[in-house]
């Protein structure tokens, strides 16, 4: 349990939390502002992903 490693780990957690917060707000605002009813994108993905068969 080296204090340096704990510091680095905490730094990592902080960084990820920042990214999460930043994109969370961004995505949420985008979703709010550009709201469209969700269309069956899932199907499209599956089609192309498994479409190889």
């Amino acid at each position, binding site marked *: 349990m080296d204090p340096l490693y704990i510091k680095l780990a905490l730094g990592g957690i902080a960084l990820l939390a920042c990214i999460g917060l930043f*994109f969370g707000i961004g*995505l949420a605002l985008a979703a709010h502002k550009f709201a469209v009813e969700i269309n069956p994108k*899932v199907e499209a993905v599956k089609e192309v*992903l*498994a479409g*190889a068969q």
Partner: protein
Amino acid sequence: MAATTKTNMQLVVNGLLNENPIFRLALSMCPAVGISTTVANGLLLGVAVLFVQVFSSCTIALIKDHIHQRIRIPTYTLTIATWVTVIDLVLAAYLPVAYKAMGIFVRLIVAFAIITMRLEVFACRNTVTASFWDGIGMGFGFMFGMVTLGAVREVLGMGTLLGYDVLGFRPMLFFVLPAAGFFLVGFMMAMFNYVETLYNRRAKRGS
């Protein structure tokens, strides 16, 4: 797809054969072509994928009710990336030699289509137990594919198996070359198809 009705054993067999990630679903082809040059490589990457698949499936199955629809895909990616980082750190720390042999591929597991796809079509609709067994099946299916390819390539290309000299000479060096991976996967898929048609024909005749 609704929640599965298959038993645990069926889920595993499903991943190994019917929906084998490499030969049937044709997903995660990059490692199958790139580094299936030896059995050991295939086995190790297989273990890594098994780990990531099982843990990601379980995680997603566990939190599936709390995932917001808008950020579904990013959540999957983050989950997978977390487990990939974990296995990457562990391998780098405890198995440095093997880790080096696999190069960039361990870190690339994060973008293997098979894992995202299983989360999307299976784990987010099923219980933790079912997802666990599905993950096991898929992971072993991948490992099986990698080991088979690795064995063929190692024997034909280097004349060795698991590092031991079995032939004493190198029949076709061509098979070690990465380009040969494409050919071999093609041949193997064709073989799977052929066996399947044979099996179906026999089943029909039998009925």
